[in-house]
């Protein structure tokens, strides 16, 4: 086979893996949109928030440490007594400085010591469960303090409210856990997948480069999508969820609690955000740019239709493969960095011919 074709295949395969991740983020959007008609721009920031929280809990950071330090003049940053191997020899700040307002340090230190916070090796599963609880609390707060007051508003108002929520969450997340880039290590494999390389070497005489992390991420996404589909098809809550999506009032009249369903949906979206945050955070570190994955998911949604789970998956794959191949083909002619806009332009051109997206419900308007 010619080299160019092989390179192209490799690029497409990598695009497919990226597409799975896009689909994963898009899935969070679709879930909330179907059940509550809210187009949640904050999904990306929720992923950032989840990842920040996970890292914070794993490392035993004190929430709002910077703020507490600024107000009370303390120098705290982690819970519990210092463990020597965690201390950077260059950093001379003690974990708990009792100068200034000592009682804050004393209190936090006491709490940390009481639970004997094992900073180094806080069980990852436990930290994940903790983070899930935080995301559920967030879902409750969002529902209780924001969207309960915006019921029956126009969709575009709700959309702008989620942009506000994105700003709010970003600010709170960074105030809580600090803005520096953090590494997230949850034991996902890294490096090149030798198996794929050796197999393709045998087939074509050219080994494909695939990151192991990408493969694992694709598997995780596939499992998650299957689980969510099963949940919404076969469980009682899942059926209630679909009923709400179909018709709020009819669902209300057969005794489904809208409030509960909306909190449930936001929690699930928070969980999806956590998974997306873990996968993306593991590959590129937990930092502000993580929240921009929302911008990657938007064209996916347009292409697939806002209301369709299969649409999110197919759209994600099309865009993942399309943008990598386009960049591969057009790079010599028009220059690089086309990934930023290609997906949007593709979705836009597509929408002109099919305004509801690939799998979206037909838009019927009445006066």
């Amino acid at each position: 086979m010619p080299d160019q074709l092989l390179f192209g295949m490799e690029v497409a395969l990598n695009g497919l893996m990226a597409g799975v991740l896009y689909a994963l983020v898009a899935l969070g959007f679709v879930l909330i949109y179907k059940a509550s008609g809210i187009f949640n721009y904050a999904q990306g920031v929720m992923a950032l928030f989840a990842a920040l929280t996970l890292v914070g809990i794993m490392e035993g950071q004190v929430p709002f440490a910077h703020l507490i330090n600024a107000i009370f003049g303390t120098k705290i940053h982690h819970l519990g007594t210092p463990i020597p191997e965690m201390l950077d020899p260059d950093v001379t700040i003690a974990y708990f400085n009792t100068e200034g307002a000592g009682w804050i340090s004393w209190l936090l230190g006491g709490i940390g010591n009481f639970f004997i916070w094992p900073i180094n090796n806080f069980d990852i599963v436990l930290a994940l469960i903790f983070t899930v609880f935080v995301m559920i609390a967030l879902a409750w707060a969002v529902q209780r303090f924001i969207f309960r007051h915006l019921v029956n508003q126009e969709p575009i108002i709700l959309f702008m409210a989620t942009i506000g929520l994105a700003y709010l969450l970003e600010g709170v997340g960074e105030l809580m856990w600090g803005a520096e880039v953090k590494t997230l290590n949850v034991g996902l494999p890294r490096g090149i997948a030798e198996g794929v390389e050796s197999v393709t070497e045998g087939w074509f005489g050219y080994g494909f480069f695939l990151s192991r992390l990408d493969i694992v991420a694709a598997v995780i996404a596939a499992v998650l999508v299957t689980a969510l589909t099963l949940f919404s098809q076969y469980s009682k809550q899942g059926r209630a969820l679909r009923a709400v999506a179909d018709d709020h009032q009819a669902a209300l009249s057969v005794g489904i609690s809208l409030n509960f369903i909306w909190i449930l949906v936001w929690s699930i979206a928070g969980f999806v955000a956590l998974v997306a945050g873990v996968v993306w955070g593991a590959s590129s570190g937990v930092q502000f740019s993580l929240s921009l994955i929302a911008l990657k998911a938007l064209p996916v949604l347009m292409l697939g239709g806002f209301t369709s789970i299969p649409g999110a998956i197919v759209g994600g794959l099309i865009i993942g493969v399309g943008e990598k191949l386009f960049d591969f083909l057009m790079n010599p002619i028009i220059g690089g960095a086309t990934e930023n806009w290609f997906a949007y332009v593709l979705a836009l051109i597509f929408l002109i011919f099919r305004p509801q997206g690939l799998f979206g419900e037909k838009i019927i308007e009445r006066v």
Partner: protein
Amino acid sequence: MFYREAGDFKTSYVDDSQTFPISFDRYRYYFVLFVAFALLPFMVDDYWASQILGPFLVFSIAAIGLNILTGYCGQVSLGTGAFMAVGAYSCYKLMTGVDIWYPAVCDGSRILFFWCSGRAEYQIWFQLPEINILLSILLSGFITALVGVFFGLPSLRIKGFYLAVATLAAQFFLIWLFNSASWFYNFSATGQITAPDTFVAGVQVTGAETQPWALYMVCLVFAFGCAWMARNLTRGSIGRRWMAIRDMDIAAEIIGVNPLKAKLTAFAVSSFFIGIAGALFFAVVSGTAEAGDVFGIQTSFEILFMIIIGGLGSIFGSFAGAAFIVILPVALRVIGTEMFGWPSEIVEHFQFVIVGALIIMFLIVEPHGLARLWQLAKEKLRLWPFPY
């Protein structure tokens, strides 16, 4: 007591349909103009002109532009930053003289306009003369209007969120274009555009040595002109057509509003203002710009926030929102960093929290923004001191 229409008799239709029918409003308006045109130019210093008043006026123009599209015509756009960039870059090209190459511009391996293969010799085929700065700013408004109409075409088929997301295509594509096609920044090595020194009637208006009052006056004249134009457009038949489309496009179509014309004129007028704002911001206020940096998606969101906080569908609201968003970071910096001595990054995070919370609060409590509060205050004032 003094703020009411009782006793203020109108004897002609012109009087009756004026913008400020209540005499107190009219005098207040003249007073504001007097302060802005006759007092402030003598008072501004460099910091106020280039950090507060200049950005405030420029972003007011941009907010008026977006308000026409979103507040009056109901088409949400997230591409405002990119349209400002179109204004800035076209102003730069016009100021420095547009160079037209033949058969194409080749920048290393990339080809910008026409397909060409191999490495041929290219030369400037034609170079337009440098155009006066004020004219350049106006012309860049028209160029942006054309680009806006082009990106507004999908609005005829796509509605609501789909359109909002579709305008992001304009945002990312245009910024990418300005960053990667070096013709737009005159092949400079840094990729930045920098405004050359220009003079209007002997007074320097762009460049490093511009006097603060000159900077302020240029921004003020454009802001006043745009606001005056926008106010009169939105009160006339074209404004009513936009509002009909906003309220319900199918119903508007049935009563005889042409949606094609209404939507495209909204895109054109809106982009015209936004282009002028971009050109002013680049040439007069900041003097230098880089597409992804200044005109990125953050700017688009900021301008959207201005019109939400200020009030959708209100010219006054555009000014109020712009003032709010421009002054908030300055005020927070003064309070947080200088009074409390907090690290600047904490103050910056607080800014995010406050802006986000305010957006949500306004959407919940007062969806029509500051403009509505202002209106309520005026209604209260009309009954004062004897409310029923």
